[in-house]
């Protein structure tokens, strides 16, 4: 058994009885036990449940029953997705004792395909952050260098895959929370189109931006996982009723990138980007050209406004979504209070961490009487322009390539004192969420300090196929995906 195997190899081995689901699950469980005390990627580990489920799958195989697409494959789940009877904390004190009374649709889909849910991963509280340092419980370490952040907010999920603690992981991405940690940890991270994957059972942060997506070591594995979790769900009326393609078969049938046009937006290749990052990205573009793609210079003129738009809209939506944490039906309650209003204020004041409170304040301010038009209204108008930039660009090109982040992972503690500086880490990932298009980050090199660099590929609405094809061809032509951190 080797954690470096692709999941298609592992699922085949399980089906052909070369290895049992029990052995695979036990193997990853041992890796978690051995490494997670240092990396602290996990909030909770479901050892007993996982092994029981694995044995069930082995019995199915022994008795000749059909098994699912992910039979026996351990997957880690970001701790903002609900599983009946399990804690869902969003890495917040306010949900410390919350037990989900229902299960998210993505989890049901994984279980239908016989995946093994091995545990829940650490995150920035309520998915607000770019370093996972905003967790109310623990700081997750980057497996490439434990003095560095793993990115965020889905930092625990990215680390789990990067360090080989699980074969796959799910995260959520509101402004880059899958792609940026994937870039920091040297793994594949995919944010699907808004509406591609049901969000029923995902604790809401910014409802017009949130999307569940995948982490994997290899592109083909994310393609398969996307196929499993995608599709219309009547419990999420924002999920799209569009057929789900066989992503994996599609990307395997393409051998080169001939006939594809790839755009390089000049606004993403500006001064201020770390030199090692821009060099790695430039080298990757040469590889794409060699594979037959036509590279074109394009412009997305409103890019520089994306961070301002996002940090008005996302906190505004968050302030509304997080109003439900009133300490009445669930969540932390402060007992020593003078009445109901005082209970609200004290429970929320103590239960939420400082970044979450900062964003609720920003959002409440932006939506308050007298300021709504100047902030929220203005931001939604500029968002229309950002969306139009992409529509214009996609008339000329099939995909857009950029760095995922302006720098590789930064040191733990380096940006915690300056929220605005932290917000600017998301400068290249945010526009994709504002426009609702799909985006992926794939490993494309290393800095001189041996920290991974990510390449971001953006596509048209519901055209995950093209960005997966480009990613897969690039991966086949390079060797970055074969490098592993020493943990």
């Amino acid at each position: 058994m080797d954690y470096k195997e692709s999941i298609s190899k592992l699922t085949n081995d399980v089906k052909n009885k070369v290895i049992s689901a029990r052995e695979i699950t036990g193997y990853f469980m041992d890796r978690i036990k051995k490494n997670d005390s240092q990396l602290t990627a996990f909030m909770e580990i479901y050892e007993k449940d996982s092994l029981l489920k694995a044995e069930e799958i082995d019995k199915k195989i022994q008795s000749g029953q059909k098994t699912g697409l992910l039979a026996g494959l351990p997957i880690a789940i970001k701790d903002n997705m609900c599983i009946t009877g399990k804690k869902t904390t969003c890495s917040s004190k306010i949900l410390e004792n919350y037990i989900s009374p229902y299960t998210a649709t993505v989890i049901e889909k994984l279980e239908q395909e016989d995946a093994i849910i091995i545990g829940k991963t650490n995150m920035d509280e309520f998915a607000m952050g770019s370093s996972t340092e905003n967790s109310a419980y623990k700081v997750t370490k980057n497996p490439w260098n434990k003095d560095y952040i793993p990115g965020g907010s889905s930092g625990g999920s990215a680390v789990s895959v990067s360090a080989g603690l699980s074969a796959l992981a799910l995260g959520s991405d509101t402004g880059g929370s899958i792609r940026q940690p994937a870039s920091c940890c040297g793994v594949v991270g995919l944010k699907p189109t808004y509406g591609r994957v049901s969000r029923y059972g995902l604790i809401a942060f910014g409802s017009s931006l949130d999307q569940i997506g995948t982490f994997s070591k290899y592109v083909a594995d994310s393609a398969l996982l996307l196929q499993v979790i995608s599709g219309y769900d009547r419990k999420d009326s924002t999920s799209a009723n569009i057929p789900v393609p066989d992503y994996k078969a599609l990307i395997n049938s393409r051998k080169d990138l001939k006939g594809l046009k790839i755009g390089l937006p000049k606004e993403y290749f500006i001064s201020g980007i770390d030199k090692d990052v821009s060099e790695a990205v430039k080298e990757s573009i040469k590889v794409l050209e060699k594979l037959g793609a036509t590279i074109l210079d394009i412009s997305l003129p409103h890019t520089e406004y994306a961070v301002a738009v996002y940090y008005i809209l996302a906190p505004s939506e968050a302030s509304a979504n997080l109003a439900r944490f009133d300490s009445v039906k669930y969540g932390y309650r402060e007992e020593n209070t003078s009445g109901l209003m005082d209970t609200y204020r004290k429970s929320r004041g103590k239960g939420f961490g400082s970044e979450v409170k900062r964003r609720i304040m920003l959002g409440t301010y932006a939506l308050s009487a007298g300021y709504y038009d100047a902030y929220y209204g203005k931001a939604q108008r500029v968002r229309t322009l950002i969306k139009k930039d992409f529509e214009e660009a996609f008339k000329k090109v099939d995909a857009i390539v950029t760095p995922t982040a302006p720098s590789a992972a930064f040191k733990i503690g380096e940006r915690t004192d300056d929220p605005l500086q932290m917000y600017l880490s998301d400068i290249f990932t945010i526009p994709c969420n504002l426009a609702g298009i799909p985006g992926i980050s794939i490993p494309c090199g290393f800095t001189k300090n041996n920290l991974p660099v990510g390449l971001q590929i953006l596509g048209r609405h519901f055209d995950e196929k093209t960005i997966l094809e480009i990613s897969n061809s690039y991966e086949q032509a390079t060797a970055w995906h074969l490098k592993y951190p020493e943990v």
Partner: protein
Amino acid sequence: MKITQKDVEYVANLARLEFSEDEKKTLTLQLERILGYMDKLNEVNTSDILPTASVVDLKNIFREDIVENFKNTDGIIANAPEREERFFKVKKIIE
């Protein structure tokens, strides 16, 4: 945009959040700096631009209005910080 501690207190009340004096001071400075950055949006002329309502072509979805009983009501009630029988219990509402 100048933000005062009074603004912070006003918004904190709307948001049902209690802050210490120190937190209020820090927030006043941080909100002023962050909102100052947002002023950048005033450079963009949006007089003829409609605000975004949805990023993909979302249509309203109707379904039959049929009651489906949620099976795990015990699981919901169990999360209540305080309850009596099958009711959520709170402090006196009318003050």
